[in-house]
């Protein structure tokens, strides 16, 4: 308010100034006959008068803006609309201005309801518009592409600023090693992983090892990734069916990947980004902190025994001594009677209160109820996953690595003489040199999603159906028992005479085969 009165003062003075300017001009003309230097004075006075006129004109426009936005604490927005209006009037119209003018003109047409405001006069003589107001909808309520582009630029720039202010100062490149093979759920896992790796702010070298050789299907997915460098290497042995053999082959593939790092002398942080893992971006910033070898906690999702208490599966390993927490089956039965509690299973380093590594949490999966899997129990794989570890790339260099002496040399740990599978933990001679990341293992930075389709499930190549399906083959019934999933409400009744899709069949474990409805016109629906 004070600003407005100040400007009006100035306006008044401007007008009086101009009037007095004319007076002084007439007076100066009479005196100019007396002295020649008065010519110069007249000239100066004219210049100042013109200057104040011009600036005064600017000031009047500013004050009119202020008056228009008197009730508006932020004056720049009415200024925006007024500016576009004035530019429209001068003829320099962009498409944006045209649209804005059209909308302003059609504002009343666009309103949904007629304005029916009742104006209440309060005792203070103040007008407040209470009552029904119009809901203003513009005639084309859709985003304008230029604005969207501008907004995205803004977002990108804000993120860059955030990265500079709060991001980690070190930006070592990340080397991600992934093993994959063509199967039904490869699309699910690989798509998630490639998008995660594409948004990491540091340069990423992605080494993909494929069991069974390089295939077009995997290449099709990998082409979507935006990484600094992508390596798609093939491993000629196809992926075996048994879990034990699979883990052995995967270990060998990862060693091959590390061999590539060693050969090319790549620099950075080596991360074992498995396909089925969900990484948070924090994981990659934490991984930057590693000096030689680091360990992180991996959470587990999708393990069996969700309803029953999963506590019984945790086995602690303290330097070779195994401390099992009770007999698995008995404990499970006892705890099944108790109220189910969900505690996330976490595999990774265990710290004491001082922050020193004292042991490891290892996941031992509960067998399914009434099921016996061949080889599952016998595996008793008391090993940590490769994903739990993060390496400095120099740790696998053969020469010029300047590795400290507590890191085993490549030949020692990667090619064990007895032919057993290489274990990543064996890269250090003793646990004390392992750096625990993620708030001493308390923060779970990545999650292992153990969800896979049946080994014999079929899927369309690259998930593209080239021609419509004509032959309908029912899915094989699975050998897994139909476990009722507890719901909050009873399942909705199947629609009578509907499309034939069974809504109540959600409890059935997906077998990877898509159930086709009987009606021909719904054949194009892919559920």
């Amino acid at each position, binding site marked *: 308010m004070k600003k407005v009165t100040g400007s009006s003062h*100035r306006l008044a003075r401007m007008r009086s100034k101009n009037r007095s300017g004319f007076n002084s001009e007439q007076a100066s003309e009479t005196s100019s006959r*007396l002295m020649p230097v008065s010519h110069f004075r007249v000239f100066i006075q004219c210049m100042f008068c013109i200057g104040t006129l011009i600036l005064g004109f600017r000031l009047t426009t500013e004050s009119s803006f202020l008056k228009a936005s008197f009730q508006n604490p932020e004056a720049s927005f009415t200024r925006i609309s007024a500016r576009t209006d004035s530019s429209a009037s001068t003829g320099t119209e962009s498409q944006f201005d045209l649209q804005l003018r059209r909308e302003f003109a059609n504002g009343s047409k666009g309103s949904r309801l007629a304005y029916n405001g009742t104006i209440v006069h309060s005792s203070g003589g103040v007008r407040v518009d209470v009552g029904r107001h119009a809901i203003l909808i513009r005639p084309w309520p859709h985003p304008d592409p230029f604005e969207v582009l501008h*907004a995205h630029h803004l*977002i990108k720039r804000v993120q860059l600023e955030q990265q500079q*202010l709060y991001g980690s100062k070190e930006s070592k490149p990340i080397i991600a090693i992934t093993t994959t093979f063509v199967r039904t759920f490869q699309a699910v896992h690989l798509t998630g992983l490639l998008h995660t790796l594409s948004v990491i702010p540091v340069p990423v070298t992605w080494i993909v090892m494929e069991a069974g050789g390089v295939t077009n299907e995997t290449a099709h997915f990998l082409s979507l990734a935006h990484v600094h460098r992508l390596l798609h290497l093939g491993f000629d042995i196809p992926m075996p069916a048994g879990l034990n053999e699979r883990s052995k082959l995967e270990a060998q593939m990862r060693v091959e990947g590390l061999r590539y790092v060693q050969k090319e002398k790549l620099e950075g942080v080596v991360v074992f980004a498995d396909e089925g893992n969900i990484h948070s971006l924090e994981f990659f910033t934490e991984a930057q902190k590693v000096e030689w070898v680091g360990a992180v906690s991996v959470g587990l999702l999708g393990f069996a025994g969700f309803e029953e208490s999963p506590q019984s599966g945790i086995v602690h390993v303290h330097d070779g001594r195994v401390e099992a927490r009770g007999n698995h089956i008995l404990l499970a039965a006892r705890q099944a009677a108790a109220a189910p509690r969900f505690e996330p299973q976490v595999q990774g380093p265990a710290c004491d209160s001082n922050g020193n590594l004292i042991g490891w949490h290892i996941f031992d999966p509960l067998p399914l109820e009434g099921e016996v899997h061949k080889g599952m129990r016998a595996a008793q794989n008391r090993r940590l996953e490769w994903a739990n570890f993060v390496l400095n790339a120099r740790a696998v260099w053969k020469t010029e690595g300047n590795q400290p002496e507590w890191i085993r040399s490549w030949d020692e740990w990667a090619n064990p003489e007895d032919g057993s599978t290489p274990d990543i933990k064996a890269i250090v001679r003793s646990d004390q040199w392992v750096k625990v990341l993620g708030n001493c293992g308390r923060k779970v930075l990545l999650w292992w999603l153990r969800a896979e389709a049946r080994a014999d499930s079929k899927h369309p190549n690259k998930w593209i159906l080239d021609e419509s399906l004509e032959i309908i083959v029912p899915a094989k019934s699975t050998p897994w028992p139909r476990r009722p999933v507890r719901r909050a409400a009873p399942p909705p009744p199947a629609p009578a005479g509907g499309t034939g899709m069974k809504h109540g069949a959600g409890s059935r474990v997906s077998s990877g085969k898509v159930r086709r409805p009987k009606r021909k016109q719904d054949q194009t629906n892919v559920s």
Partner: protein
Amino acid sequence: MELAKVGSLVDCCIGIVVVEEIMGGFWKLRSNNSWRKNVSFLMSVGLLLLFLCQLSLATVHHQRISGSAGDVLEDNPIGRLKVFVYELPGRYNKKWLKRDPRCLTHMFAAEEFVHDFLLKSPVRTLDPEEADWFYTPVYTTCDLTPNGLPLPFKSPRVMRSAISYISMYWPFWNRTEGGDHFFVVPHDFGACFHYQEENAIERGILPVLKRATLVQTFGQNHHVCLKEGSIVIPPYAPPEKMQSRFIPPSTPRSIFVYFRGLFYDIGNDPEGGYYARGARAAVWENFKDNPLFDISTQHTSTYYEDMQRAIFCLCPLGWAPWSPRLVEGVIFGCIPVIIADDIVLPFADAIPWEKIGVFVPEKEVHNLDKILSLISLEQVLEKQKLLANPAIKQAMLFSQPTLPGDAFHQILNGLARKLPHDPHIYLKPGQRVLNWSEGHKKDLKPW
């Protein structure tokens, strides 16, 4: 900013011209036209005086007390004022709380926490003779429905009863008829004690509170329910709940505009147009398809985390212009987009809201995407930098335990700035200004 620069430039020019005129006046002294020269000389002297006056006015132009955010916010009120807390019987405060402990967690909980703070604060004095301000702890917003919404129907009677109590047992009310008393009234429309705007305007501020200072969350210019000299405070938001949900600041902000809440109040205004004066409905109808706008009525459990991933957070008016979204936006670093005409934001004399937030007039809501995409990058970064200032975040919170610079201290700062009291508030003994029989018939019944 540009206005100031232009103004100073114009002042320079005016100054030069005026000096020219004066010199010209002196020169004309030698010429023959006497009366003309006198008039022009006087005019130029007058203009010079005006110019000097205007210069002095220019320095007082700022409505803010001091330039940057954080200066005034860090003032320490301890030692600058003394507050006496009346001891009211439990039926005015403790009993309401015992009846419904939800009063401590809803957005009107400021009245309880201010009482608690003042009882333990060093500004409290047990000697009322030396007190500058008097506080009456009466919880008028604690009569809750089963749903948790406060009913204001008894509040005027409760307030009148409390005031008649303190006027009976202490002489200080009658000394000034409330001129040095303050009350915390955090309800929708402050001391108008109604949740519907029409009724609130019709009732006006409770007549017995006409001379007292009101500490309220409601603030709107040119509105009956905002008295001159009121202190506008933020609504209560639980500080522990918000501070436990911080995500790392390096998480990139990928949402452009974020809002969660109602657009249509189906229960009270099914056709739309009354609720929020149609502004929220306009936001929905215009931007529900816009991918830049993450707006919905769905309750999400990641509300606080999502706010920290958003650049702009909408704070539109509802039935009342204020909302806790402003507090949440400031705490989580999300630039508040305030859609409420004439709103007076909390601690507006200490926090430069125009520099922090974006104000959109209600009639421009349908162009919100244009307005937001026209904001330049430098402005956005500047606003985010101001929001990162911990002083502002602290000023919005009613921290438990109290910390320097938090909302309690800002209230005390506001009270301290109003000292010393105008000697006119002190009435002569026996002089009565307030009319106790003024107001609605129902409010006059004793409680």
